[in-house]
């Protein structure tokens, strides 16, 4: 059975996040994922509060960037979570948002082997956690072919794609997928009874964030290079990801980087992912900021559970 999760922690207070967590677990969700930087709340201590307000669902911590914390601190964060709150945690690792990290003094210069360095740190983190008796999963958040290929040395991957053809391409980059490997996707998600991508700024923005992070090779492979490059130029010129960036990319391209759906579309999408062998879907931001979307998901989960 496909594992379903929701990513929490965009701009919500701790109180809101723990209340949503409790309701989603009661509705039957398998896992909650606590995002980290650039969110204002830190994932590791927040994951403790989420564990305390829920009973048994799995709690994913991250995406944590080894360039921000260092591998040793990430290991200690996860070990301390397990010791204090039980064996319920998974960890998601990745380089993080390059431009957002740059704002706090972490320079991830392109061409400096970011993918290799992150994968190496992730392997070290997994090894040290396993040596200390960690039973959870260490996953890599991946989009480019190098990171996707490197993820097979870990316990799983969360592909930062929504579009089915892009997911198929990503799966093709993986050779010798180990047994028990978690194949997951992490689509920016907006659920509504009347979804309208073009008129919904939060999902357009989330899609644009993924699009501008796309590596050169998949950009060309998916024939979106022209639009994404225009978005990147707009982002660099304005110093922020705003309307200029989104308009430069264009909604026709942007909508390929997000899931904007009603319940029927959602069920159909999940069936297609199931057909591709995807075992984990984490509904990414901005879903957690939308009451309508969360209520819709809770309702859909209830109906799936009773089927």
């Amino acid at each position, binding site marked *: 059975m496909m594992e379903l999760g929701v990513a929490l922690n965009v701009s919500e207070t701790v109180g809101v996040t723990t209340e949503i967590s409790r309701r989603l677990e009661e509705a039957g969700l398998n896992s909650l994922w606590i995002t980290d*930087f650039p969110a204002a*709340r*830190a994932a590791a201590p927040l994951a403790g509060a989420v564990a305390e307000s829920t009973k048994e669902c799995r709690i994913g911590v991250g995406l944590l960037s080894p360039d921000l914390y260092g591998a040793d601190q990430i290991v*200690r*964060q996860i070990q301390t979570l397990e010791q204090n709150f039980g064996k319920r945690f998974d960890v998601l690792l990745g380089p993080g948002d390059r431009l957002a990290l740059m704002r706090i003094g972490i320079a991830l210069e392109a061409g400096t082997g970011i993918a290799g360095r992150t994968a190496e740190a992730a392997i070290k983190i997994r090894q040290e956690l396993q040596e200390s008796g960690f039973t959870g999963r260490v996953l890599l958040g991946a989009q480019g072919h190098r990171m996707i290929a490197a993820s097979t040395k870990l316990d799983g991957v969360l592909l930062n794609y929504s579009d089915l053809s892009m997911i198929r391409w990503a799966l093709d980059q993986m050779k010798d997928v180990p047994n028990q490997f978690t194949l997951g996707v992490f689509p920016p998600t907006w659920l509504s009874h009347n979804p309208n991508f073009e008129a919904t700024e939060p999902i357009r923005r989330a899609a644009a964030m993924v699009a501008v992070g796309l590596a050169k090779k998949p950009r060309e492979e998916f024939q979106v290079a022209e639009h994404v490059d225009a978005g990147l130029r707009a982002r660099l010129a304005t110093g922020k990801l705003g309307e200029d960036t989104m308009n430069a990319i264009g909604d026709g391209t942007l909508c390929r980087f997000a899931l904007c759906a009603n319940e029927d579309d959602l069920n159909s999408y999940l069936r297609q992912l199931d057909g591709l062998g995807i075992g984990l879907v984490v509904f990414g931001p901005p879903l957690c900021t939308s009451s309508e979307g969360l209520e819709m998901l809770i309702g859909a989960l209830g109906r799936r559970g009773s089927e």
Partner: protein
Amino acid sequence: MYRLSVGVTTGMGFETTDWIASHADTLGIDAIWIGEDIGAGQDTSVLASSMILRSTKVEVGTGIVPVTMHNIATIARMALTLHEISDGRFSLGIGIGGTQDLRKAGVRIRKPVTALRESTLCLRSLWEGQKVTAANDLFSLDRYSLRLGAPVRIPIFYGVRGPQMLTLAGELSDGVILSGPFDYIERAISIVREAAVNTGRDPAEVRVVVWVPTIPTFRGIKEKTAKRIVALVVADTPQAVVEMLSLDREKIRAIGAEVARGGPKSGAALVDDEILNAFSISGSKEHMVDQFQALHEIGADEVVLGPPFSGEWKIALAELATELRRRNE
């Protein structure tokens, strides 16, 4: 009347920290302070989260998180998260970090006072909801903001020693965590208060917390454990502080050198009764509480119990808290 709190460090095991957090409310203590052993043991932010969630009344603070070892945005985010988890029971204690630890980590700070001042101002600006641009030896922010809906006020405590740092604490901090012999503490408090007055503040706005090793020998703790802890504290005492003491400076220098050469166990061999009594509080519960009272009389608002926690430490903590309450009644 003064406050009584318990100090733990991240290097302690889960069983110890969990017991303290779970019993903090019933022990009747006012706060728990968490000292970060750089790069070792439990993660400070997760441990703080756990201690907050396992207690309901006590304040929980870091004592301290070194600003030299973490990204400033990470410290701001961690504190915001703990502030919200605790519903306002959290205080952020910051400092530069212990001399020995920084040396081991290969960190060298040219202007520590400036670094702490700028870190404090930056954290407060971020919690006020401002967009911050700053660049210095320690951190670099470019139009960074926490995007808060409303400003938050998180108390900042300093774990500092030298006169310039103490002056800064009086000028800027909400409280100061002091450690050292009595004569040093008395002098340090007067520097903090004088700086507060000179800045136009009410000195009572700066809470004085005194955290020295408390060694309840009345409940089975071994003297060699105490000496090992004291050796480490002596070795970590900056020269500026040593110069404020009436103790034999050569003896202090020798202990520091021995700890640097062979570690705290080796340095412990040079710790005599004079040094032990100057840098720690030990003996019977009545004597220890007398010493706490003496600290209060020289200006401490709060006294921190422990570590080390060994022997029958749980009983010792309860008995000390009870003795203090009895005297306060």
